[in-house]
């Protein structure tokens, strides 16, 4: 049991060459290799269950350093493959018992993967995050000292005006984000939204009001990036960030198999 291993799957593609990722260390510095099944290939690392078994994994996922290192290693392999061929990324921490069982899955699900690969071929995922920019409070606060003998009233008036401005800006920002998502969606073959990132995670003090993903034809990528710049300048109380190109993490669907025989 001490040497028990499992197979960590990074991604699936029509073909893979080991030299594409021979310069990369996989998760936990385990080497990356190829498993084939039917017409498909998967990039994998054979990892020790002592570190990647269910209980160990649950413990590790509480460790931000471990999680970041693992996520970046996983992503590096997916990107390395995606630089050569269309790729279907696997979710982080998808493990198989051994190489044979992964190969058998690839063979059994080749039709589903072919469809998924067809959907993402010659297309790229882009992310767009929109933040509501807080209005500057200084405009109304300065130069209104004629209530100096009634500082409480002046404070309340200032505060109310700030709140009005803030609510107005918030409504305008939300409306702007909807328009941005609608117009960018027209340039994409598929679009979706994720939950906005919390300020603690985004590292931005401005609240995120749109966290969207778009699957864009490769030939349209430049036009898409230009459109992001354009809509950002059209909608004043918001700030727009474009991320990507990404492997198609958000658009790689493979239908779940019917709950057939379990071992």
């Amino acid at each position, binding site marked *: 049991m001490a040497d028990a291993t499992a197979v960590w799957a990074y991604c699936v593609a029509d073909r893979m060459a080991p030299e594409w990722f021979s310069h990369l260390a996989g998760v936990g510095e385990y080497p990356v290799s190829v498993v084939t099944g039917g017409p498909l290939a998967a990039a994998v690392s054979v990892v020790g269950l002592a570190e990647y078994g269910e209980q160990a994994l649950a413990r590790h996922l509480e460790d931000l350093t471990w999680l970041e290192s693992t996520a970046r290693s996983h992503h590096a392999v997916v990107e390395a493959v995606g630089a050569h061929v269309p790729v279907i*990324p696997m979710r982080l921490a998808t493990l198989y018992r051994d190489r044979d069982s992964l190969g058998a899955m690839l063979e059994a699900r080749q039709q589903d993967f072919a469809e998924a690969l067809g959907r993402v071929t010659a297309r790229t995922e882009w992310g767009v995050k929109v933040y509501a920019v807080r209005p500057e409070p200084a405009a109304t606060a300065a130069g209104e000292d004629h209530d100096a003998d009634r500082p409480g009233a002046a404070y309340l008036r200032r505060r109310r005006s700030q709140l009005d401005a803030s609510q107005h800006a918030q409504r305008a920002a939300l409306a702007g984000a909807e328009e941005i998502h609608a117009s960018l969606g027209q340039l994409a073959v598929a679009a979706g939204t994720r939950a906005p990132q919390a300020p603690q995670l985004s590292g931005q003090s401005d609240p995120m009001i749109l966290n969207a993903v778009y699957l864009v034809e490769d030939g349209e990528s430049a036009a898409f990036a230009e459109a992001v710049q354009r809509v950002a300048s059209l909608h004043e109380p918001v700030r727009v960030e474009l991320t990507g190109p990404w492997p198609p993490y958000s658009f790689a669907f493979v239908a779940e198999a019917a709950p057939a025989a379990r071992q």
Partner: protein
Amino acid sequence: MSQPVATRRPAAVRYERIALVDLLDRLLAGGVVISGEVRLSIADVDLVHISLRALISSVSTALEHGSEHS
């Protein structure tokens, strides 16, 4: 952070510039999960929730420490 092999190579520099939160957005909620007879029951939704909770608490703690000085 801790990826000595990757950081030696210029091609990997851009990986370091990707915000971790954007990456985890995708790696923990995107990508293909095939639950079948051969998969270990590891990449389940419960686990993803655990990790996100941990991430939020870790990151917010770090930020609170950082903002004490600003």
